[in-house]
């Protein structure tokens, strides 16, 4: 569990996201009836995150649940992959996809050939550590704002090092709309002295 320097509900969402994310990867390989052809060049798939870019933004690690990553622990690359859209019955049942679900399925984002990474629309693999690149494909305006420090929570120094958060620290990738949260109590109303 990464450090979430905020209290209450934000931390709760984080946990939920962690849980969901960690299980999504294995969900897509739930049934192994489909044929599977491994990538010819294994080295390309072993994507190494761009450490300098991540450091520049001071990104915390993605919110995985302990022990859930790497996904390949369950998703045996030797098994065939099913790309057909279907109801998940065995694993990841708790995932409710409300993120353009008409057009999207697990393997649009999760890489079928290397379960431990994501991929962009053009097939370029992207590490979970840099998942914002994936989000930015569709949400370019948000991504631009985020990069400028204007979308999302920013902590640290206004004239120095800032801490960024990944999109998935606040948004459940499968259901990104913000959940309602419990507010702090209202201020007391002023009372007259008799």
């Amino acid at each position: 569990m990464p450090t979430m320097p905020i209290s209450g509900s934000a931390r709760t969402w984080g946990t939920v996201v962690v849980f969901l994310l960690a299980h999504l990867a294995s969900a897509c390989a739930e049934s192994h009836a489909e044929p599977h052809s491994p990538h010819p060049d294994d080295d390309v798939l072993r994507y190494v995150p761009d450490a300098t870019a991540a450091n520049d933004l001071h990104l915390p690690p993605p919110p995985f649940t302990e022990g859930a990553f790497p996904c390949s622990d369950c998703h045996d690359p030797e098994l065939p992959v099913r790309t057909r859209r279907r109801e998940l019955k065995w694993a990841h049942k708790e995932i409710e996809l409300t993120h353009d679900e008409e057009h999207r399925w697990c393997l649009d984002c999760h890489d079928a050939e290397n379960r431990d990474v994501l991929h962009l629309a053009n097939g370029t693999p992207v590490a979970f550590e840099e998942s914002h690149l994936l989000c930015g494909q569709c949400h370019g305006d948000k991504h631009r704002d985020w990069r400028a420090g204007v979308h999302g929570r920013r902590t640290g120094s206004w004239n120095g090092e800032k801490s960024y958060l990944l999109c998935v620290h606040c948004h459940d990738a499968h259901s990104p709309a913000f959940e309602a949260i419990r507010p702090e109590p209202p201020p007391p109303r002023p009372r007259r002295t008799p």
Partner: protein
Amino acid sequence: MSCEPGLSRRDFMCAVASCAVAACTDVTHTSFFRDRLRELSTADIAAIVADLEREYRERFGKEVTVGTEEAMDGVEFAYALDLSRCVGCRRCEYACIEENNQSRDPEVHWIRVLEMDKDKGIDFAHATPYYDAEEVPRPGHFYVPVACQQCRNPPCVKTCPVGATWQEPDGITVIDYDWCIGCRCCMSACPYGARHYNWSEPEIPKDEVNTDTHILGNRPRPRGVVEKCTFCIHRTREGLYPACVEVCPTGSRKFGNLLDPSGEIRYVLENKRVFVLKAELNTRPRFYYFYGV
């Protein structure tokens, strides 16, 4: 806080008025018989800080540092708040209370989060800070947090009869708590309800007091004076974000140097459409509201 050495009003007042103030509880050389902070020399301010730190140590049983950091060159602070993201959770309101040593009894809240109706827009007459909900945002509503707007043309500064409040070079309007006479002209003048008065002795539990303070900001205040948001002057003059920015779970709150072309604020001004509250009053706030979506 510039220096004006030489003839000391303090000495004069010491001689003249020492008998007249027997009834006061906090009569000390440094707090009572002194000039405004902005006129005092560095040495005078150091003496005041030492007195304050001693007083707070006795009162809270721990070391409280009273900083005197001055405005940085080339810095003008500004704030931007994204109304399409604020959910009205009031995390900022309470983080502000803890960070800035606001009184817990009676409760002083520098930030007021107003709930407004979506079909009415920004309409204070139908707004309330007292919404009590299980969950926010509530359907049909949006939220407008309001605190000091750090005006470029502050009516509060204009109206203060003794010049106890002024704009610092970095744009923060501050109050000299030991010079304020508590007449509350500034509260009448403020169009944003940003100024708050200590109607009785402010109470801060010993274990909750924030020991990192600034002399013009969050140091524990005496009774009978006015206080307000200072953009967390004790944090921001050290390069940190204000507490409300750090705590906001939706990232609605943006802060930075207006003079830095690559900063967040300039990005917002350039790429979003901003507005200020009650623009018709020509207060020219440094606190911008925008719709990020």
